């Protein structure tokens, strides 16, 4: 009997002890206040996004409720159907915008990772003539606001005769100085001996790049994946400038059209906002650990 009760109570006592040690000990009033303050702040920064999510599922009567409610009471998928109908009456269906966004984003993410990493590898590891100069130019290019170059880029694109095509949306975004810089900082940390050893084994730069370098700097190019995804998914100026036909526009532009529409489209607009915002957040949650790893190496060493 005693043994049995010991078997039951000992683990409970132990759990209570561990719980106390891990969670209760060291809690002071000022710490509680700090946490409450931070939680309030986080609620503030996250509120509009939660509001988008909740509004996207609101039925019509809740959308126009006065006073408005923050959370949805009777969730419905009707708004998403409305979104398809609302954009159906426009020139091209909503799915076309979605396709444009997905297609250009995937192409940019894939090719910018490869182009940037190859360039960063050569600049970081081989002292070819002019490398230092090229890197200095890339660093100063970090300070150009993208809009500064928007007019001349328009000319370049029109001279290449790729205006109003997918090329115009993809090509200018492949060689981003910020990404090159990030990846290069990481590649500087690959020990030279590793590459020397591979060279002795008869590997050339191309095989070394895919077999050794890319696995080593995985966090760095994962970060490039996130940045170029977010940068393109949310970009609203370059499709506005470089494309003219409605069939080439992307999601953010379509959203602008829907939210500028009549009041009756409030639900459709919220559903569209939801569709636009969620992919970035999901991707960020998945890749967050890699991002944190990379960012620590991203400071400009001057």
């Amino acid at each position: 009997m005693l043994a049995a009760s010991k078997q039951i109570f000992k683990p409970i006592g132990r759990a209570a002890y561990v719980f106390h040690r891990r969670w209760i000990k060291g809690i002071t009033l000022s710490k509680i206040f700090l946490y409450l303050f931070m939680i309030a702040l986080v609620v503030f920064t996250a509120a509009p996004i939660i509001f988008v999510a909740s509004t996207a599922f609101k039925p019509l009567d809740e959308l126009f409720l006065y006073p408005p409610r923050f959370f949805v009471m009777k969730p419905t998928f009707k708004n998403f159907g409305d979104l398809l109908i609302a954009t159906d009456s426009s020139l091209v269906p909503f799915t076309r915008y979605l396709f444009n966004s997905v297609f250009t984003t995937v192409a940019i993410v894939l090719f910018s990772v490869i182009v940037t990493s190859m360039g960063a590898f050569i600049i970081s590891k081989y002292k070819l003539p002019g490398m230092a100069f090229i890197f200095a130019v890339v660093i100063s290019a970090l300070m150009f606001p993208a809009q500064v170059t928007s007019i001349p880029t328009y000319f370049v694109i029109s001279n290449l005769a790729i205006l109003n095509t997918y090329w115009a949306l993809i090509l200018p975004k492949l060689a981003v100085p910020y990404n090159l810089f990030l990846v290069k900082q990481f590649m500087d940390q690959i020990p030279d001996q590793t590459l020397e050893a591979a060279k002795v084994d008869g590997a050339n730069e191309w095989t070394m790049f895919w077999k050794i370098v890319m696995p080593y700097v995985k966090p760095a190019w994962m970060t490039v994946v996130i940045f170029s995804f977010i940068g393109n998914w949310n970009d609203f100026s370059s499709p506005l400038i470089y494309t003219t036909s409605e069939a080439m526009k992307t999601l953010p532009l379509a959203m602008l059209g829907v939210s500028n529409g009549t009041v009756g489209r409030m639900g459709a607009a919220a559903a569209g906002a939801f569709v636009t915002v969620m992919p970035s957040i999901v991707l960020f949650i998945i890749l967050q650990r890699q991002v944190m790893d990379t960012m620590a190496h991203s400071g400009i060493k001057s």
Partner: protein
Amino acid sequence: MAGQTAVAASHPPAYGTRKRTGLVAHLKTHKIKYLMLAPFILLFFVFYIVPVASSIVLSFTYYNMLQPPRWIGLANYRLLFLEDDIFLIALKNTLAFAVVTGPLSYFLSFFFAWIINSLRFSNLFALAFYAPSITSTVALTVVWTYIFSGDRYGLINKFLIDFGLIDRPILWLSNPDYMLYVVMFVSLWMSMGAGFLVFLAGLRNVPSDLYEAGAIDGIKNKFQQMWMITLPLMKPQLLFGAVMSIVASFAVFDIAVALTGMPSANYAAHTIVSHLYDYAFIRFELGYASAISVVLFLLTFTLGRISMRMFSSSDE
């Protein structure tokens, strides 16, 4: 292959044919390297260097896209600073962003990174903090226009009326007196993320034994610790964050347009980039627009150089 390189390096080619063979040999030896570098350099040259260079040239011309550019010297710049009142408004608004939103977002993001780094569940807090900057400006405009809506259904107006602070709704997004502050507030909220992530990672990178050593050396409180240990070690990240926030605060455009329209009432939320957009893509006066973009580039570049100077340390 390695032998060839060594020979080429130890006997620098002298003149004429030998120089030529040296160059050919060099290219042959490093063929794969140049091929791998080529795509980036090519794209960077075509989409960064060419646009910047041609922008500078066009800024000295009159060009409307129909007739070929005509050289007019400094006339665009003279017009810009002496006669274009709207540009001066845009400059004033942009500088307001650079002076208020830029530093504020910089310090707030550092401060919150510092606090969040010492909390439990810091990853969760980090996500919530970073969320605004990964979301699309335009998509969230739906929310902001609801919050700042000018009728009594708008969230802020409703609260202010309920608490009896105002008796009629305020037209947040169309009243020139409030517009700029609303845009500043929203862009502050959106811009904290990137700097915040860099700072958080930098803070995590500081070795903890340095703090213990500091405690032995007589560092008493958290602020002294921050000033003497953390900040010097975080210089690269601090510089990176500064450059990013300078660039971001000079480039405010799509938030302003999405919230207040283009052009905004009385140009109260007109920024340099709005002005640039107006002349380039609505009026098609490209020489003038180029002059605007050169001024913007010089502003950012100068501030970027200054912050590089400030953060680069001679004592390291």
